[in-house]
């Protein structure tokens, strides 16, 4: 190989090295994005944490709904008992939409065991009272005597509590969440049913964030 060719080759190698070095400092991962992936709500997604996630909600509420239907106060009741939902108390470190738990249990019971229980819609009370006043004042028609109190009273209150425990160590972070739900007799204050589910998760973040 003569000298000019040699130096040409050297220049090419050096240029390649330069370009290769510079290329590593730029660039975008997934420039076109990641297509939307439809997943089942009880499936663990590729975006995950140690907190309360949809698959936990589904599995916990499924278990609770099945469990409630098995108790004698519901299964052998002559008249479907009336249940009022009382907000779940979140005692974990994860801020969540608490209403989702009871809403899903209610929907499960109403859709899968229609007629065995009935739920009283206390969220609608203000609207219902306004409607009753309109009927009483004769501003709107009524199919029954609006002066008779027909709003149902609760036989049971269904509520729950989420408790959590967190451990953080060099090996990662671990979160244990205990989900408890209970049905309380509105007349006697006795807890007639209670069940729980527990989920523990742990993980370790990328070193770039530790």
């Amino acid at each position: 190989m003569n000298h000019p060719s040699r130096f040409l080759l050297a220049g090419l190698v050096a240029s390649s090295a330069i370009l290769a070095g510079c290329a590593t400092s730029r660039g975008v991962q997934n420039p076109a994005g990641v297509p939307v992936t439809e997943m089942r709500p009880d499936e663990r997604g590729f975006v995950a944490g140690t907190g309360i996630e949809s698959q936990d909600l589904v599995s916990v509420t499924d278990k609770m709904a099945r469990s409630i239907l098995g108790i004698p106060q519901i299964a052998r009741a002559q008249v479907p008992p009336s249940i009022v939902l009382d907000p779940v108390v979140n005692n974990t470190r994860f801020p969540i939409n608490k209403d989702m738990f009871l809403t899903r249990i209610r929907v499960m019971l109403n859709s899968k065991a229609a007629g065995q229980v009935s739920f009283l819609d206390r969220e609608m009370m203000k609207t219902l009272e306004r409607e009753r006043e309109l009927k009483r004042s004769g501003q709107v028609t009524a199919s029954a005597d609006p002066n008779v109190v027909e709003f149902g009273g609760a036989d049971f209150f269904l509520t729950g509590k989420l408790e959590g425990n967190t451990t953080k160590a060099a090996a990662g972070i671990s979160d244990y969440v205990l989900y408890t739900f209970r049905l309380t007799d509105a007349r006697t204050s006795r807890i007639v049913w209670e069940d729980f589910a527990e989920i523990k998760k742990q993980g370790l973040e990328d070193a770039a964030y530790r």
Partner: protein
Amino acid sequence: MSGGAAVRHGSGRGARAQVCRGAIVGAPLFAAIALFAGCAYGPPPDLRTGAGLNGAPRASAVAPNAPTAADQRVPAVPERDRVLVDYRAGVSALRAGNFDEARAYFDDAIVRIGGIITNDAEAARARTLFTAESNKPFIGEPYERVMAYYYRGILYWRDGQPDNARACFRSGQVIDSDPEQKNYDADYVLLDYLDGLASAKLQADGSDAWARAQAHAGAQVALPAYNPAANVLFFAEYGYGPRKYAAGQHGEMLRFHTEDSPTRSARLVLEDGRKIIPLPAYDDLGYQATTRGGRVMDHILGNKAYFKTGANIAGDAALAGAVIANDQARRRERQGKDGDDANLTAVGLGILGIIGKIASAATRTEADTRQWNNLPQRLSFAALKLPPGEHAGRLEFMDRDGNVLESRTQSVRFSVGADDRDTVVFLSELKR
């Protein structure tokens, strides 16, 4: 290149040797120019000013076709800076009383910082030699993430969800915990205090959390006992928060600086001075930023800096060797001997030297100094029982001697609801 012209017109061995010498000198020079031209790029844009996000605004770098102020009002936000923008905009919205907007920003941020980040391609690249740490999606240092949860907790409480507020305060304390730095582990006074207050309001036992908060506060500070009947919660903040900067030979060390604010405490004066609510500083973000302990990323950046220095020294040594070999080749050619071997050695060393210099220059060691730049320095809190209706007063800030800083006094108005939901009043010395 002059060497190239000599190739076309020169003839004979002497002329060819001249070409070689020119090329030996020219190749590294060309490569060096290409290196600096090719690798030169600026830091990402500052989302507030349009200048460098990593450092101070660069007024001299304004191009003739630079975006106008109107253009900058809606800056393009790189996805990796999204959480940073959420943080800044969220607290600005909170201070402006735009609570829905603040909630949306903090929810967006918490969705991103609340999980466990694994297998993130950009984070993985940030750990490599030739990619800067600031290439990773920003989630902030622990004191920044804690503040996102703290502000979101305030908003939850304002929305009548003290249990979710408590969850936020607990998450903040977990973020601040460090298994290797037990002395400064999860030591925010207010996070534990508010955790306990929320529990007390939810008919649970908040005494453990209160005791932890008191232990963090130290013997000099007597935390008020919980009053579950208190229906107005005052969250106050003052002073300017910590600043990040990159220290070390190659900027590989992340450091924090807090310009101590003249405002050392505050008080709320209501009912024409008949009711004075002290708002002492319970937490100091400057202290929290500097006592968090080291990061794993610090070790990675340290290794990068070590490589950068080593590659640079190796490059220098190889280039020096190339010069010596080239000189040897010229000497042999003057003596009529074959200088090809020395020339080859010079070229080889030159290439190695260039590669070393390139590798050194391309190694990105700088610590990530993107920062939540509108945080306060000090945090305070007070709870009070007030009758429903409109209330007005003034917020006074005091210096270290307890003198009121008159120019900083703010007028305060708030309304207490008649329902059983707590009224949350957010008070800040900072405007945005």
